[in-house]
């Protein structure tokens, strides 16, 4: 195949906006997200010649980014660091938001509600619902069976729906505000 660096750039560049969006949705911090994307691109460039020729460049790039994200998470939790706070800092800004009615208002924003989901669910919801990956591609990319992707998707979406509807469902318990410092 070949084609050298221009060909590589032509295959990678179109996916950078989507990679930035995915990274930001996971980290909610523009600088941290772009650092993650840069890391991803550096690795992609270094490993370009190892890429399977028939592999879809977009899925391959997302797989690298997702892998780096998880590795970063692991080392962050080992160090006992807090997860990055939302840029909006809404939980910090409004300590009175503990009231359930307030929560309901907050959950109306799909993006904020997304944060209340388990990380695996969030990843799948973003890959499938926003980045338009097929279930099979999302499964391969995250290294889990398709059935697992389907159940994460199904549970994640149901949880999101309940949060936004303000439905204090028995299976979810009270909304968990995971990023309060």
């Amino acid at each position, binding site marked *: 195949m070949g084609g050298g660096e221009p060909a590589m750039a032509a295959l990678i560049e179109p996916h950078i906006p989507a990679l930035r969006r995915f990274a*930001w949705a996971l980290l909610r911090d523009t600088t941290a997200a772009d650092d993650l994307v840069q890391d991803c691109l550096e690795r992609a460039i270094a490993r370009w010649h190892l890429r399977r020729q028939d592999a879809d460049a977009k899925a391959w790039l997302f*797989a690298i980014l997702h892998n780096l994200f998880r590795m970063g998470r692991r080392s962050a939790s080992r160090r006992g660091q807090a997860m990055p706070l939302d840029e909006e800092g809404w939980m910090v800004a409004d300590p009175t938001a503990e009231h359930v009615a307030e929560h309901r208002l907050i959950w109306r924003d799909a993006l904020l509600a997304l944060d209340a989901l388990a990380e695996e669910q969030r990843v799948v919801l973003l890959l499938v619902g926003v980045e338009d990956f097929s*279930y099979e591609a999302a499964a391969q990319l995250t290294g889990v069976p398709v059935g697992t992707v389907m159940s994460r998707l199904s549970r994640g979406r149901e949880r999101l729906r309940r949060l936004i509807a303000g439905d204090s469902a028995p299976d979810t318990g009270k909304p968990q505000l995971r990023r309060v410092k």
Partner: protein
Amino acid sequence: MTVNGDPLPVGEDDLQGWLDGHLGQERHARVEAWLAENADTATRFRAMATQRQALRSSLGERYAAPVPARLRVAHLLTARRQSRLHGLHRIAAVAAWLLIGGVAGWAGHGLVPQGATAMRPMVAEALSAHRVFAADAARPVEVAAAQEAQLVGWLSNRLGRPLVAPDLAPLGYSLLGGRLLAGAAGDPAAQLMYAGPGAERLTVYLRADRAGGAGTEFRFAEMPAQGVTAFWWVDRGFGFAVAAEGLERVMLQRVAESVHRQVARSQAL
């Protein structure tokens, strides 16, 4: 999708597929009809469809935002070339990253040998490195055999011991070249790659290995799922593994013996 005109019952997967627009026309119509009869579920899924759209919209501006210069491929390539000038550490670091997580993460399985935890790290690295680089038709080696003296000098220098590139021509294998890798403990490791009569690849992997529990006798190791096998041994603090894919065990052992003999004879190691 139909058996005797009786369509498959609508399942959770159909409903998710409906949300994501992944269904074919016929199935989509079938799900629509089913939703018309199941008002509660329909309400739930229409709410989810709205939220799916809300999520996409709220991330839309992130997608539309201009890409910062530091994320341009051209920029990253320039930075990479500059850092390459600093030496070959970077190649080793990238290679180590590859061996540890990269391709394994992408493939989701298979790169790190099954039961790798039980396997001696040096051997697991040898098998993984064989799997990664032997499959790479475009760039199997970092330094080609044409610069053999340079290759051997470089690897000797990095491994801190004089090396030789074993001559395997009598067995039908010619040297393609080699590369520097990083072993699990951070020790530099060398991989020499050979091509057989049918261009099949064979690699010799070596690095300092001071972990006890192994002697100079040959041992056999394999990644069963990939068909990569190796004979390995440890001699005076140095580990060696000769790896190939789908090669007869007898032949592999003969190559390993030849490597072992040449290394011992040269007294270089």
